[in-house]
């Protein structure tokens, strides 16, 4: 199991942590949906796993081995398919696979390249320069390169950006197939329906913190009890004190109600204290609605 425990990270000269006490785990064969608005800390988290940033505080381990030990023993056991087309445009598909495959190891290289070509269905363009491929084919090559080292875990950072529905369907099936072979996958995307369709468990992070985590049904059930409101007149601290008896305040605008309380009770408490409620929502959510409730509607950087 890949586990991250209490990860903190602050960029040089930054005023606040990019990651603050982040903990999560991914099992072999599991697809974990990692969600968060832009700037939430997803890329920083992935950079840690991909050996691109040093660990400042916390621990990352796989089956008891620390990430550093694992990197020394088997550096390519965690592979990454970045959001960018991370391959050499002037090289052919096969040459790219050969290049990245050989960096991992020359053992069974030809066989691994053939497997990656079959997996990504790129055999017919294997001699074609990567820069001449369509957007969908480029995404497939990006994914194929990540599978070359037979990794235990793959980090997929928005792997379907800019592709047509057919290519997207192919890529999603490919991700499911990978997971079925026992590969643990961390899947980040802004397309909520993709994450709903793929992920067994979901982690939502914002401002560097995990704000929700669990399997999809649990999270959506949470949504069933989530009271979302906008109020004028009370400070966040006062709101926190007033609503503490009614449930768990996730953000100053989101209250996860206890089962014995109703939304009207909580809202009445606020109004009696002088708040004017301008908007309130309570009820069943899909993932996108839940995400918007938890991370707020305000635009991000």
């Amino acid at each position, binding site marked *: 199991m890949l586990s991250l425990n209490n990860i903190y990270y602050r960029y040089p000269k930054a005023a606040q942590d990019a990651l603050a006490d982040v903990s999560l785990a991914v099992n072999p064969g599991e697809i974990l949906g990692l969600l968060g608005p832009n700037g939430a800390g997803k890329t920083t988290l992935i950079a840690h796993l991909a050996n*691109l940033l*040093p660990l400042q505080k916390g621990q990352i381990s796989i089956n008891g081995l620390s990430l550093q030990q694992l990197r020394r023993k088997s550096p390519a056991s*965690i592979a*990454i398919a*970045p959001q960018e087309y*991370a391959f050499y445009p002037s090289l052919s598909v096969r040459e790219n696979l050969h290049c*990245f495959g050989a960096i991992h190891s020359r053992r069974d290289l030809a066989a691994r390249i053939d497997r990656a070509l079959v997996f990504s269905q790129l055999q017919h363009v294997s001699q074609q320069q990567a820069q001449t491929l369509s957007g969908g084919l480029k995404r497939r090559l990006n994914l194929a*390169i990540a599978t070359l*080292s037979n990794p235990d875990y793959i980090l997929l950072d928005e792997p379907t950006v800019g592709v047509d529905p057919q290519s997207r369907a192919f890529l999603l099936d490919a991700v499911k197939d990978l997971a079925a072979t026992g590969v643990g996958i961390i899947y980040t995307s802004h397309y909520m329906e993709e994450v709903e369709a793929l992920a067994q468990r979901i982690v939502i992070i914002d401002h560097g913190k995990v704000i929700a985590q669990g399997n999809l049904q649990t999270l959506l059930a949470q949504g069933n009890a989530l009271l979302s409101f906008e109020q004028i007149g009370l400070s966040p601290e006062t709101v926190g004190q007033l609503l503490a008896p009614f449930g768990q305040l996730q953000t100053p605008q989101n209250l996860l109600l206890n089962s014995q309380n109703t939304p009207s009770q909580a809202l009445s408490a606020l109004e009696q204290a002088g708040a004017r409620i301008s908007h309130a929502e309570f009820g069943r959510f899909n993932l996108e609605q839940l995400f918007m409730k938890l991370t707020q509607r305000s635009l991000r950087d």
Partner: protein
Amino acid sequence: MLLALIRKEFLALSRDLHGLAALFILPVIFIILMSLALKDVYSPHVAQLQWSVLDEDNSDASQLLIAEWGKNSGSPIALPDNWEKAVREGKLSYVIRISAGAGEALGKTESPDRPPLLLIAEPAMDIGVFSALNASIQAAAIRARLGLFIQMAAPGATTVTAATFNGELLAKAERLSLIKASTITSVQHNVPAWLVFGMFFVVTTIAGLLVEERSTGCLNRLLSLGASPLTILLAKVIPFLFINCLQSVLMLAVGIYIIPLLGGDALSLQGVDYLALAAILVCISLAAISLALLVATLVKSQAQASTIGPMMNILMAAIGGIMVPTFVMPASMQQLSHLSPMNWALEGLLDVLLRGGDLYSLGSEMIKLLALAVICICLAYLLFRFKKS
């Protein structure tokens, strides 16, 4: 619409400070450097050359001749013990050898068997300067002979002919060289100079490649696969070393085979120490590639790579004696030229191609170039790691 687009361009320009710096500051530096370097190009510069005297005659006539020569050429320095080595290595520009009996020979009307005055010049001396010195030493010999005639003989007592004042019979200049090349031509100077310039142009290519690798995410992918920053940097050395070798072969071949077809003089490699040539070319290449890797880790965009790289090359070439020979520069600029890696590279190549240099005599240039390579690689590695974290 046009105004809006023009405004947009101005805004974009104003926010690209590095680009603006390249557009304004570097050309200003270039103008200053070139103006200083060429300050003395139209004035005689033989006076700046270091020279010495080997006076085997040690007569009043020879002392007079040295004093006369010094009026236009500055004071001579003491003759080094191994003066031939100093001249061959270019540390001493020339030595005037006054043969025993020169005073007596100059005082006679008969032509001597061989010129009593010999100006022995360094092998890589510019052909224009060499010709000027040759003419000057002959003129000095004629003046000396005329002076002696006036002192020694009563008017009409001496019979002179045209041959009496034939400067070529009295004095001559020759280059000291181990190279068997019959003549030193402009191509012997130009090929090494522009070969060095071309080899250093890998700076732009390597910087551009690394920026592209960074922007496409390839670099992150390589790092995530366990490739270390040092491995990634060193992986660029071998291919570009190969490219530089190809450049060298091509440019030397152009000098040897193509220039003569176009009516120019052929580059001669007769007597060249090929091991020394290969060694200095490898050192130049390593210095150029390492400098390129340092620039590549410093620049942030393709625009910066494609501007800073060429500008840096032009500046190094301008002060390094590639565009303007260092001997035409004022003394201060000549001192400055020793700071340019292109100058070390050029001097190394001239040592091999013109001065008969071997591995031993190339020591200082090779050490400087290799030291630059090591320093640049270390800095590039540290910067790479710093940026990664």
